[in-house]
Every structure is written in structure tokens, then in C-alpha cells.
């Protein structure tokens, strides 16, 4: 069995420009193979222009990384479609499509692409349809687990299956900005308050248990999905790329942990070493076909 790629998801949070540049300067030395760049959450977050992302991408390429530009997940305004068309036309990097709009534009241009998780691939026929449109790699939908991953990977062996092995789960998208709402602001006058939350904003149930994480128009799980203990099963299911979501602190150690796993480290020991890096705890329910928030024993 070949060694899987490590990939770094786009930064889901609104970090200041300097922080983004510093982060990717460090990534050049990390053992990741593919780096996804770009803004996937909110069209108002424009600390970096397309030229900035291109410059970061070029430096990562020079350091031997493969670079993919990831698109917005929710497109509502005509101007957002315009920006999407321009990006797909002009970028020399592969594009990850997070909405059928991007699939349409890329298919029209004849450009191969990565099918993002929000495209909702749940069965082989859907995956085949995206392959026909030009997808050559796909991210497993967040709520799917081992059995679906294995069935889909077996149905399309020529495509690369990527699985989110570390990060808060992307759970929902809305027209409403919940960070602005928490500050009694409207989305139109948000004042970019989400920049105060480099890890999103923790939302607890009223008995104090961490539950969700508010990140602008995007809602994530509070718990971090960690599939470190499941590493052998993830690879056996057919995953050829393992995705790690950047977080405010500790991303480098997470990458190092999964790099060790793919070079033979013990999953149990690695899981224990990584657990403290999850800001409020870990979960793995989806991988086992259960509620995403559940934490189950690894089934090897």
C-alpha cells in the first residue's frame, strides 16, 4: 500500500493578512504534499487579493508543494459569480470546486478539478457524473464514513479520495453571519468582527458543554474530528490523501503527527499525543456511521 499524501485545507477563519503570509511561509518546511489556498467562507473577507494567493502558491510550489485554489462554498450575488469565473479562467493552479457553479465553469473551460466536500457525493453514480465533468480528486462528504468511502473509492479507482482526518467538521452554511449576530451587528455592517476569532467562536449548550463553533456564515463542530486512531482503516478504505484543517495553534504538530503515522508510528500513541491539540476535544462518529459528535473506539 502506498503512502498517502498529506494535504492542508484552506484556512477557514479570517486571519489578518500578515498572519496568513507567516503561516504559509512556515508551511513550506512542513511535510505536506498539497496545500489548498483561498477564501471558502465569506466573500467579504478580502485581506488577500487573488494576486496575493497566487504569490503564496508560487512560493509553496517552489518548495515542492502541489497547490490548489479552493472556491467559495455559498455564492449568492452576481459579483461573486463574476469573481469565480475570473478565478477559474485565470489561475494556473488546480481549482477545488465547492459549489456546482464552479463545477459548471470548470467543465466549460475543460479544466480538471477537485470536487469539494459540499458537492454532496453520496453514491458512485454522482461521483461518476462529476468525473465526467472533470473531477479527478474528491473530498469525502463530511457526514460519510468508512463504508461509503470504501464503496465510492472502489467504484472510481482512478480518482483520488481525500478524507478529512483532523479538524472541526464543516456543518452548515447560511446567508446569516452568526458572528455578526453575536455582536448585535448585521452582516452588511459586520465590521469584520470574525477577525477577533482566529479559531472561530465556541458555542456551548446551556449546561456548558462545547457543541458548535461559529465562524461567520459557517457553523462547525466544536469538537475536532480526529481519525488518527483510524489511520489504518482510512488507508484501507482507499483514501490516498489525508486532509488537515488549519487551526489557530498547533497545526504544525498535527501535521507532524500524521506524517509520523504514514511512516509507521503507532496509531494509539499518536492519537494520545495529538488529543491535547484539539481545542475542546475530539470526535470520530461519522467515520463509524454514527452521530458526528460521538467518540468511538477505533475499529481496526
Amino acid at each position: 500500500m502506498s503512502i498517502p499524501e498529506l494535504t492542508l485545507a484552506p484556512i477557514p477563519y479570517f486571519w489578518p493578512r500578515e498572519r496568513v503570509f507567516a503561516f504559509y511561509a512556515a508551511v513550506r518546511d512542513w511535510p505536506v504534499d498539497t496545500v489548498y489556498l483561498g477564501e471558502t467562507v465569506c466573500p467579504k473577507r478580502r485581506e488577500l487579493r487573488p494576486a496575493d494567493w497566487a504569490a503564496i502558491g508560487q512560493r509553496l510550489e517552489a518548495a515542492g508543494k502541489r497547490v490548489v485554489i479552493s472556491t467559495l462554498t455559498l455564492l449568492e450575488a452576481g459579483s461573486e459569480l463574476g469573481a469565480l469565473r475570473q478565478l477559474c479562467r485565470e489561475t494556473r493552479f488546480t481549482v477545488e470546486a465547492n459549489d456546482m457553479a464552479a463545477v459548471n465553469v470548470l467543465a466549460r473551460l475543460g479544466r480538471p478539478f477537485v470536487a469539494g466536500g459540499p458537492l454532496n457525493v453520496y453514491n458512485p453514480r454522482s461521483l461518476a457524473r462529476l468525473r465526467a465533468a472533470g473531477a479527478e480528486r474528491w473530498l469525502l462528504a463530511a457526514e460519510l464514513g468508512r463504508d461509503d468511502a470504501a464503496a465510492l473509492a472502489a467504484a472510481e479507482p482512478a480518482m483520488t479520495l481525500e478524507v478529512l482526518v483532523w479538524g472541526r467538521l464543516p456543518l452548515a452554511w447560511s446567508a446569516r453571519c452568526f458572528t455578526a449576530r453575536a455582536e448585535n451587528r448585521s452582516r452588511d455592517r459586520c465590521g469584520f468582527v470574525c477577525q477577533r476569532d482566529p479559531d472561530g467562536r465556541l458555542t456551548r449548550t446551556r449546561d456548558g458543554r462545547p457543541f458548535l463553533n461559529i465562524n461567520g456564515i459557517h457553523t462547525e463542530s466544536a469538537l475536532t474530528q480526529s481519525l488518527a486512531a483510524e489511520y489504518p482503516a482510512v488507508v484501507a478504505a482507499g483514501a490516498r490523501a489525508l486532509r488537515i484543517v488549519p487551526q489557530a495553534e498547533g497545526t504544525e504538530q498535527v501535521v507532524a503527527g500524521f506524517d509520523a503515522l504514514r511512516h509507521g508510528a503507532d496509531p494509539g500513541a499518536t492519537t494520545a499525543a495529538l488529543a491535547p491539540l484539539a481545542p475542546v476535544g475530539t470526535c470520530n462518529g461519522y467515520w463509524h456511521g454514527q452521530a458526528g459528535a460521538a467518540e468511538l473506539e477505533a475499529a481496526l
Partner: protein
Amino acid sequence: MELVCPAGSLPALRAAVEAGANAVYTGFRDATNARHFAGLNFGERELERGIEHARARGCKVYLAINTYPGTAGWPRWRAAVDRAAGLGVDALIAADLGVLDYATERHPGLRLHLSVQASATNAEALDFHHRSFGIRRAVLPRVLSLQQVAQVAASAPVPVEVFGFGSLCIMVEGRCLLSSYATGQSPNTYGACSPAAHVRWEQQAGGLEARLNGHLIDRFAPGERAGYPTLCKGRFLVGGNAYHAFEEPTSLSSVDILADLQRAGVAAIKVEGRQRSPAYVAEATALLRAAIDACGSGSPAPTDAWQRRLGELAEGSQVTLGAYHRPWG
């Protein structure tokens, strides 16, 4: 504009037809549709009777097969598409690429509507489904402003349908896993949000608690009206404040802007609520029928009175324009 009304049962179907629906939408009694609740929806024989009843009165019948089949469930969804085609429904409402692909290949004459569950919020996404599957209409998610609806309607390759009244999904339909994260049962795969089997009510010293698979969704003070614990309408702690972090229990009502939706070129107005009673369906349908008819007549309409009556039908007795009204975001 066509008025499309919910039919979660044969009595609800009859009520909607009687009250003036141009079309009703239905589903089979299983996870193939996004309103999979106990006691709801149709078996084959019932649907046959429903179609006969509606047709005789000039009303169309649409059928939703709008969840996402996994590999294991695929044969059941495929069979549902075949049954729908065999029964001669006026349109199939679908979201999944595989389901749409299968329906296109196997039943080329079957009219396809893109379900709101497909999360298609823009003209490029609609163009993809139009080019790929020849969809004839698309239901837009409840996240667009009136201006954005107009923009999509003007540039889309197919007519669009929007929600006019009913529960307000504040997340993009088809891209919300909140319920699945908490319960393991997903609107996308199982067809139900915050399913009743996971709801538990507990009287505690601090008030009545509503839990969803153990997660505390809300706590109601003595005397406070306790609503169904739909996850996104619960109260949570953000930075120490307990409030409706996502949305208050409220319903969407577009009565105030129906004329604007008509001017925007919207082809159909949908009433949400296949899980509601025939009496609710009758009243909501009759009100929306009157409101849509008034749009065409040019005479002043008793909008305030309608809005009051719709408010009485609404969740938490409150209505909102939701995302149609820009400041909501």
C-alpha cells in the same frame, strides 16, 4: 405564479386542492424524501388515488425524491424513481446527481425539478443541472435576498420556484449537518431534521429542558411556551450569553413581497409543511391563493389581515421575511 402546496397525506392533498393549489408536492413513505416522519407521506396506492383526485380538479402532483442515497441505499432510490415515473407524476423533485442522472437516462420524458436540497443558489449551478439533466424548474434555497432572487431568476436557464410560507430553514438546504452531527440522522440521507425519536423532555429545577440525543437544545422557564427543539432554533451560550444564536422560532412569510417576487419573474411559490395537519394546509393554501390572485388584480389587498392570520399559523406565532429582507443576514 403557480401555488405549490404540501401534501404529507391524502387528507392534506385534498385540502390543498380544495383550497386552490395549482400543484401539490408529495413523497413516498421512506427516507427517499426530505420529510421522512412517522405517519406521513404516501404508499403507491394512496398516491395513485391522490393523483386521480388532483388531476380531476386541474391540480398537478409533484413527487420529491430529494435525499441523497448512499451506496447501500441506491436500489431503493432507483426503485422510487421508477415508481414515480410509472405513476405518471407531473414532475419529480430531485437533488442528488446520481438520482437526476438515473431519471434522465431511464425516464427521458419525466419532467425534473431541481430540489431545494441541491443547494443551487446561483445561475451557474442551475446551468449545470440544466445542461446535465434538462431540469425544467429549480427551487431556490431560503438564503437569497429579494434582489438576489431577481438576479438569479433573470439569468437562470430555467424558471425558479421560491418559498412563500412555512418553517424557515436558515441554513442552505442540503448543506446542513447540524442534526446529523447531534443525532446521526441526517436530512440529506435520512430525510429528517431533529428527528422526534431523539427528542427528550425533562422537567428540571431550572425549567423544562429539551434535549436532542442528549444535547441540551433549549431550557424553558415556567410558563414559557416550549417549541419543538429544532436544533438551529435552540438557545445556546456564546461568550457567556444564552440566546437564539442562530434564529428565533419563527416562520417565513412572503405575503408582503409577493408582487415583488412576481415582478422578479418567479414562476412558482411554495408553501412549506408536509408535516403539518390538513387544517393548516387548507388555511395556508387559501391565504396564499388569495394573496397571489390579488397580485394580478391590481386592487389593494388586505395584506395586514393575511399576515395576522398567517402569524397565527406560524411557529412561535411570528413571521419573518428571512433572507428576502437584507438586514436579516
